[in-house]
């Protein structure tokens, strides 16, 4: 028991993402409203984005913006700045996420126009007719 708690506390950030992911996952599967599903998807994506960003963190690391001349003359001590690569990657992932959300919302508009509702049960009922 002690070991498990220690494990959880030591890597608390990962556990937070796991919890976030599961919330998103639950929303995608459990919710019957299509917009809520979409929000679940966003939470899911955000969890992964946070996961990535946190991998760049270093204890005591600063912002990875350095003065050009200082960097050229002294070089950079990697320990003093956080790893910027995951952040940059996640910028792209965020853009992807926005695009997906945009397309999904547009699609939902069409669904709404088609069925007059965004509740999955009601839509299925209408299809069944």
């Amino acid at each position: 028991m002690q070991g498990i708690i220690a494990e959880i506390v030591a890597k608390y950030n990962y556990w937070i993402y796991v919890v976030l992911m599961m919330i998103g996952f639950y929303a995608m599967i459990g919710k019957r409203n299509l917009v809520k599903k979409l929000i679940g998807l966003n939470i899911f994506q955000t969890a992964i984005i946070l996961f990535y960003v946190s991998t760049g963190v270093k204890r005591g690391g600063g912002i990875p913006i350095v003065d050009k001349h200082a960097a050229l003359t002294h070089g950079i001590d990697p320990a003093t700045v956080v790893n910027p690569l995951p952040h940059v990657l996640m910028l792209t992932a965020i853009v992807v996420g926005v695009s997906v959300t945009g397309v999904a919302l547009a699609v939902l508009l069409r669904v709404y126009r088609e069925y007059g509702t965004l509740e999955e049960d009601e839509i299925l009922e209408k299809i069944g007719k």
Partner: protein
Amino acid sequence: MKQVQERARTRAVGESLIIQTAVRLMVPFIQLFGLYVIVHGHYSPGGGFQGGVILGASFILTAVAFDLQTSLKRFSERTNAIMGNAGVLLYTGVGLLCALLGGLFLDYSALVRIIPMDPVEWRSLGIFLVEVGVGLAVMSIMASLYWDLSSRGELDEGL
């Protein structure tokens, strides 16, 4: 003053004079800031994405504060789409130009063949052009996302 009061009375619910005036004042500064972020993006924090989003936000702000038609009057759907496409074309075009001029794709130093400059200078300028392209594309996409989603794709009244 009377005119202003008159307009305030005939305004639809939710439209407030204070907000509209504030937005009208803010939008130029927001856009200027957006341009700043784009232009300085290639060697300091910022860039095409961020600047584009800020520019796009300025149009969205107009649309929120006034209505969709007003913002479309400033910046029509057609212009927006053309600018978006042109942005991507600029980005890929610069990359392709590098390739056509004998370098690798996006290898801006190859652009020396057009205007003889220091290759390092060209690298800086090339990425700047790319950032401008990205900024244009992102701006137009942000704007049209809002327009289309808020009006169910019909671009009439908006939220």
